């Protein structure tokens, strides 16, 4: 007993103690739910069996039911559109801004940091503001689009099934620009300046320097940021809750919102767990890509 105490105070036990408690906590609060989620996706779960562990197993029936629902494929399609459009928008605008601020002028780093405001704002507040900006009759975005002659009539962003998903995409791009820009700036500042000086002496113009130096040097950073964007976009929930709530008629529903909706609006926990399992597999694949592209950092 004394030796154990001594080891905890001054030896191997100190490290093991420090690391085992948090790992046990994470296992209980994240690992076990993950396993439980998979178990529930093979069970029949209703309001009456919610309190017991002894629920009947139904094999793959939940999965079969899920894919026989008429809304399943449209929602998975929406998820793909949401992810691709959000990442494309965030990355392009973020990269352009990062290149602009990279030129370096007085106050550039302070102004660049100001963009990160969107990252610290609660998602519900961002959603509420965009909900108001995108409002059909009185929204300021419609006003700006009308005045600049881009559209002739008001677009009902939130209630028109053709636009509702794009309403959330716009808000999500706004939200994601800042983190794309900051991380890309970090990558840009790591490129040695003398490469550009040498290229300039050789007579390479701006575009040539971008394609032959900047892009190749940024390859691993870009890979990591796109994987991270995929992870963050698949986590996006608050904007859906605040802007469209998946409607109208599922036209702006995506898998991560649908899983919650199944469990907490329709009280079908088994279906909710089934959707979750499918999506978690996707997220895991994305995160393996991310971890691989930042491996040198992980190893220290």
């Amino acid at each position, binding site marked *: 007993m004394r030796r154990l105490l001594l080891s905890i105070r001054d030896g191997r036990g100190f490290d093991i103690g420090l690391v085992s408690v948090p790992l046990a906590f994470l296992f209980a609060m994240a690992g076990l739910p993950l396993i439980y*989620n998979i178990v*529930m996706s093979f069970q029949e779960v209703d309001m009456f069996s919610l309190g017991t562990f002894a629920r009947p197993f139904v094999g793959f029936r939940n999965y079969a039911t899920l894919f026989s629902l008429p809304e399943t494929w449209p929602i998975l399609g929406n998820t793909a559109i949401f992810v691709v459009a959000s990442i494309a928008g965030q990355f392009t605008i973020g990269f352009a801004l990062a290149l*602009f601020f990279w030129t370096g002028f007085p106050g550039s780093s302070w102004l660049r940091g100001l963009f*990160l405001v969107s990252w*610290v*704002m609660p998602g519900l507040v961002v959603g509420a503001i965009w909900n108001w900006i995108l409002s059909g009759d009185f929204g300021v975005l419609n006003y700006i689009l009308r005045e600049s002659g881009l559209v002739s009539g008001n677009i009902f962003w939130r209630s028109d099934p053709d636009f509702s998903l794009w309403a959330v995409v716009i808000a999500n791009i706004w939200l994601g620009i800042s983190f794309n820009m900051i991380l890309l700036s970090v990558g840009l500042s790591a490129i040695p300046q003398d490469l550009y000086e040498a290229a300039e002496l050789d007579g390479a113009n701006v575009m040539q320097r971008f394609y032959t130096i900047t892009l190749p040097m940024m390859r691993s950073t870009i890979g990591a940021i796109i994987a991270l964007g995929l992870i963050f976009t698949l986590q996006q*929930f608050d904007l859906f809750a605040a802007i469209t709530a998946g409607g109208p008629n599922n036209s702006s529903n995506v898998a991560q919102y649908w899983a919650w909706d199944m469990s907490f609006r329709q009280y079908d926990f088994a279906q909710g767990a089934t959707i979750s399992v499918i999506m*978690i597999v996707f997220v895991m694949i994305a995160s393996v890509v991310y971890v691989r592209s930042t491996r040198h950092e992980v190893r220290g």
Partner: protein
Amino acid sequence: MSLALRDKFMLVVAVLLAAVYLFPLYWMYVTAIKTGSAMFASPPSFWPSDPQWGIYGSVWESRNVGRYLWNSLIIASGAVSLIVILGTGCAYVLARYRNVWVDIGLFLILMLQVLPASLMITPIFVGFSQLGLLDYPRVAVILAIAAKSMPFFVVLVRATFMSVPMELEEAALVDGNSRFGAFFHIVLPLARNGILVSAILIFMQAFGEFVYSKSMIQAIEYQPASVGLNSFMGPNTNEWNNIMAYAAMYVTPILAIFVLLQRRIVSGLTSGALK
């Protein structure tokens, strides 16, 4: 074009870009103080002619904003305390050793970091209700947020510990300190700033948390401000000035912290996510 002129030109463009980007934030503050008719005016006015400052007081009273913010504060503080107490030691050990177990541990932690809350809430809700934890809804939310955000904290703080020279700790050990003493008297004080910045980042995230609170807290008197804002926004609402006033009161404290600590927060964020 002289260098100074180019700098000025770039600065003007940069300020314009920032203004365009931050326009939604400005629109929130402006809408909040508009009158009911000015809000729906066409064309909209971009500068409030008749500011209604009283709206903050009336929304604060009628929507119980104080209680909502208090719950947000309790939940965020609880989650951050739990994360700092558990996560700091974990980050320290993961920074101090380099072997295959540390690699495996880090990999698992990074994988946990990416699990979306809206997908994890189903098993967490069912499990917590079976354990009876939902009778203490705020505790349940604190535990769930702590598990969700701790990996991010560990990754950030580990980067801080890696920058503390190991020789300092070894010198303390040679001088007769125990591991315990060296950790608390040498390593922790040196890593204090990094831990503080990471804790503030986690706090701001937890202050805006929505999914777990919405799903697990049924009683209105325990709900945080994010859930309150959500129930304020009905599908056909037209009280946008009140909603924006609520949002402004919710987000202003966070923005104040951010502007004060901007430089540190930005560098803290970038050190952890990418290298």
